[in-house]
């Protein structure tokens, strides 16, 4: 366990993370991810995160060392696509039983690796540690090492048991495993000045293939994508790339940063969601490659391609603009997609009713503020109930979100479009953004919404649940006391259960002006610390009071 906790501490210390840089040493030690509250949480574990990050490597056998729950309940449930091998979609698990727990599961694990190599002969086996063998002390590093020596094949331990933290931490621990055991262990047959790595892209719904043709046209080669449609060998020789792009916010920032440190591969953080973002990313790739010695004409060729593709995309989107006039979107998603999709939606003429910043970093939030202005209605940690109210209040005409929150919108008979990993459509690059706009239009103007909103013909229109809910909302609006009560009841610190009203009262009563003072008086932001920026927002909104 000691080496795992050392790795976790190392990951928490990530210097390239802007969010981390603003923290105190003590906060940094606590970790970059929110500790979840018992009974009030929903989200994957560190094992889930590690598997999400690595499973798109298509020719690898992904073996889960744990009881049936970890693999049996979840295998083959991601929308990543492969251009060839299918082994990654095969579920492998040691399915530990009581005997393995009492006597240890190492022997079973070793045999399982042997069976996989004998039956499937993959270029590598990845072994995922889970909570129970971590508790009982199964040493997967030792088993993997023994298997590697015996079978002459890479057998890679992925040390990310679920209970060490949430998904986000698992992403990073997966990256650490690649850095320690895979990257730099093989050499490519040939290299070119146009070789790049794409880090943190999973090729969901095949979306990488919406961008790859453009890179192909420019002669830019994806030496390794970590991990969408990736192959083991490509990751092993990815250290020979000339430049890297890191997508998906901070999920694998440690991989990008350490590859820069170790192999001198410069990287930038970019996105292929949205027209402007796609163009910027292409420009940055070209610039980094030219800086590293690629012929300078790449820049001009890239500009020409961008001009052509943007014009094509705008022409395809233009007909939708009048139809989207005055339509409002509620965007519930995490991290990087908040700001990159916001820009794209505005390009199509839609207004934002709000966006969630649950998984976004402070930097992400700043970007959203830039895009939407200071009044941006950022919906932090919205509960399903609040989402539902917001939708029903007709502040939004359509909700874009991940699969988990979809039913709130669907049950409220509100147009809804899936934009997270379970979605069926690919939305990357120029063609992807046109597709997103088409899908929004198809959803928004589907006559089904009007039909499903109709009460049953035998219902009293004044006594439907919509009518009752509307009446309750109207009563609340008419009574400023109630509205104020609702506003003050909004939760700020989930760990300590502190609401907005309590913080405002404390600020008023004691003339507080700093985060630390609020912490002392209310215990807000003394748990995981993730709400510190919200407390600062509250302070900023009450300057006059603090001065009194």
């Amino acid at each position, binding site marked *: 366990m000691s080496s795992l906790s050392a790795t976790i501490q190392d990951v928490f210390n990530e210097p390239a993370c802007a969010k981390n840089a603003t923290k105190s040493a003590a906060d940094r030690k606590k970790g970059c991810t929110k500790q979840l509250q018992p009974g009030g949480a929903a989200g994957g574990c560190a094992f889930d995160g590690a598997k999400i990050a690595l499973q798109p490597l298509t020719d690898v056998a992904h073996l889960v060392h744990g009881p049936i729950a970890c693999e049996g309940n979840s295998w083959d449930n991601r929308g990543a696509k492969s251009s060839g091998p299918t082994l990654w979609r095969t579920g492998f698990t040691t399915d*530990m039983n009581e005997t393995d*727990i009492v006597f240890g599961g190492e022997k079973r694990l070793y045999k399982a690796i042997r*069976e996989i190599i004998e039956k499937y002969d993959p270029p590598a086996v990845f072994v995922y540690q889970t909570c129970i063998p971590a508790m009982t002390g199964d040493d997967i590093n030792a088993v993997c090492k023994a298997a590697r020596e015996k079978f002459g094949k890479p057998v890679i331990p992925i040390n990310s048991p679920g209970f060490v933290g949430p998904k986000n931490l698992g992403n990073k621990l997966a990256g650490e495993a690649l850095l320690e055991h895979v990257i730099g262990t093989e050499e490519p047959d040939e290299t070119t000045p146009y070789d790049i790595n794409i880090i943190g892209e999973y090729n969901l719904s095949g979306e990488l293939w919406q961008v790859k043709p453009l890179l192909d046209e420019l002669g830019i080669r994806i030496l390794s994508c970590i991990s969408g449609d990736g192959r083991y060998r490509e990751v092993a020789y990815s250290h020979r790339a000339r430049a890297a792009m890191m997508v998906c916010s901070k999920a694998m920032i440690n991989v990008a940063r350490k590859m820069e440190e170790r192999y001198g591969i410069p990287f930038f953080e970019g996105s292929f969601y949205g027209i402007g973002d796609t163009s910027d990313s292409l420009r940055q790739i070209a610039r980094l490659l030219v800086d590293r010695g690629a012929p300078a004409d790449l820049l001009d060729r890239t500009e020409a391609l961008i001009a052509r593709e943007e014009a094509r995309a705008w022409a395809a989107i233009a007909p939708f603009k009048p139809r989207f006039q005055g339509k409002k979107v509620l965007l519930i998603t995490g991290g990087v997609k908040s700001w990159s999709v916001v820009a794209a939606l505005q390009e199509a003429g839609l207004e934002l009713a709000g966006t969630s910043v649950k998984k976004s970093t402070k930097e992400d939030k700043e970007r959203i503020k830039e895009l939407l202005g200071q009044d941006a209605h950022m919906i932090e940690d919205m509960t399903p109930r609040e989402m539902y109210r917001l939708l029903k209040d007709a502040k939004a005409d359509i909700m874009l979100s991940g699969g988990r929150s979809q039913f709130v919108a669907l049950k409220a008979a509100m147009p809804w479009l899936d934009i997270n990993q379970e979605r069926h459509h690919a939305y990357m690059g120029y063609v992807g953004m046109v597709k997103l706009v088409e899908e929004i239009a198809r959803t928004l103007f589907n006559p089904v919404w009007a039909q499903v909103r109709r009460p049953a013909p035998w219902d009293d229109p004044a006594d439907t649940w919509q009518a009752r809910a509307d009446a309750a909302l109207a009563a609340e609006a008419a009574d400023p006391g109630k509205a104020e009560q609702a506003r003050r009841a909004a939760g700020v610190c989930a760990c300590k259960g502190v609401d907005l009203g309590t913080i405002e009262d404390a600020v008023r009563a004691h003339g507080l002006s700093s985060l630390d003072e609020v912490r002392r008086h209310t215990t807000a932001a003394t748990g995981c610390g993730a709400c510190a920026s919200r407390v600062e927002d509250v302070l900023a909104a009450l300057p006059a009071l603090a001065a009194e």
Partner: protein
Amino acid sequence: MATVTHVKKACTVNPLKMSQPIGAALAFMGLRGAMPLLHGSQGCTSFGLVLFVRHFKEAIPLQTTAMSEVATVLGGYDNVEQAILNIHKRTKPEIIGICSTGVTETKGDDVEGYIRLVRERHPEVADLPLVYVSTPDFKDAFQDGWAKAVTRMVRELVSPPPPGIARDPGRVTVLPGCHMTPGDLDELRTILEDFGLRPSFLPDLAGSLDGHIPEDFTPTTIGGIGVDEVAGLGASSWAIAIGEQMRPAAEALQERAGVPFRLFPRLSGLEAADAFMMFLAEISGRPVPVKYRRQRGQLVDAMLDGHFHIGGRKVAIGAEPDLLADMGGMLHGMGAHITAAVTTTHSPVLAGVETDEVLIGDLEDLERRARERDCDLLITHSHGRQAATRLGIPFFRMGLPLFDRLGAGHLVSVGYRGTRDLIFALSNLVMADAELHHEATPDTWRVVDGDSLKSEGEAA
């Protein structure tokens, strides 16, 4: 009659099995105003949540005690306490169903003790129904978790009726196994009501996960059987258990409230449906309604039409024991051969499956057997899709999870009508496959090299 064997291999490949705690959690979802709570790491809950959302295409209430590594080592009292208080505060449930997981069982958390202590320390939850069920991931399977949870509900929630009280002759408790879909439950409810009976289902997924638009938004289950109604189940004149898995729950109800029970291991197929109808006629004292006499005729006709397509088929089935027994029995009755059968966990019902061998194994085993034995129909849950593609044989999705087609909750297999429609669906699948892959050509029956006939498979 089948022998039950266990695979001898260290690595499960393409799991058929899912874990106990989520089976138990699903059972709690059949209670009204319920919040199931898994005592384990947050991933245990998250995986279950995603699985059910993909299957039912509904909002799923499911919470976690979010055990961290440190909490796991120190013991989970604080997490259980916080979780109960938070759920109580945030979602006002009528009941919380707590299921342990592998992590907390390995540590040995005394959850029953925790619950007593939480009740003592926090008067606001002293009377909140909290039902705990022990469901370690490293033992048994989904079906077992469901069965254990229902047994615990009976023991914890049903009030023993006062001695000497007259039973309500129209009142029947139905204890459905987890292989029953919400559609099956609705079909059964209609049948029982047509006999003038008043059934209560424990659990009742038809009320909670049948895809209806609720009257208002709530984070707990909507519909399902209420805790108050469960308390009164002891007044039933009969209990009907569906699937061998429900025997312990039925026995618990008998023991606790003296309710006699009849267990139906199967409800699909003519004989099974006949037995069910005659039992209802007997306990209700009413003749079988005309509606069902007609439906029986329709089923007989469907069997005659369908046997051309289903008869002689070599079927590979992967399912939990009770679903395997139910489908295996129905298909055997249609003349199909259960050529490969794989299941998840032990059950007395397996020995009676009409095949030589039932293997407790995974979908890799099922796929290999299906290939070796030339099966031409695959029946299992959605995870069989990759195997079906590789085998190139028609694939009928059944069981849970069923995430890549719509209508999982409304697939009906019980009674005359359910069996009739199932026979049509299976026959149509086989016919479509024949049209696509097995159309006759001039070379289909040509003798090549004097001895080898081109098989139909090769012609495709």
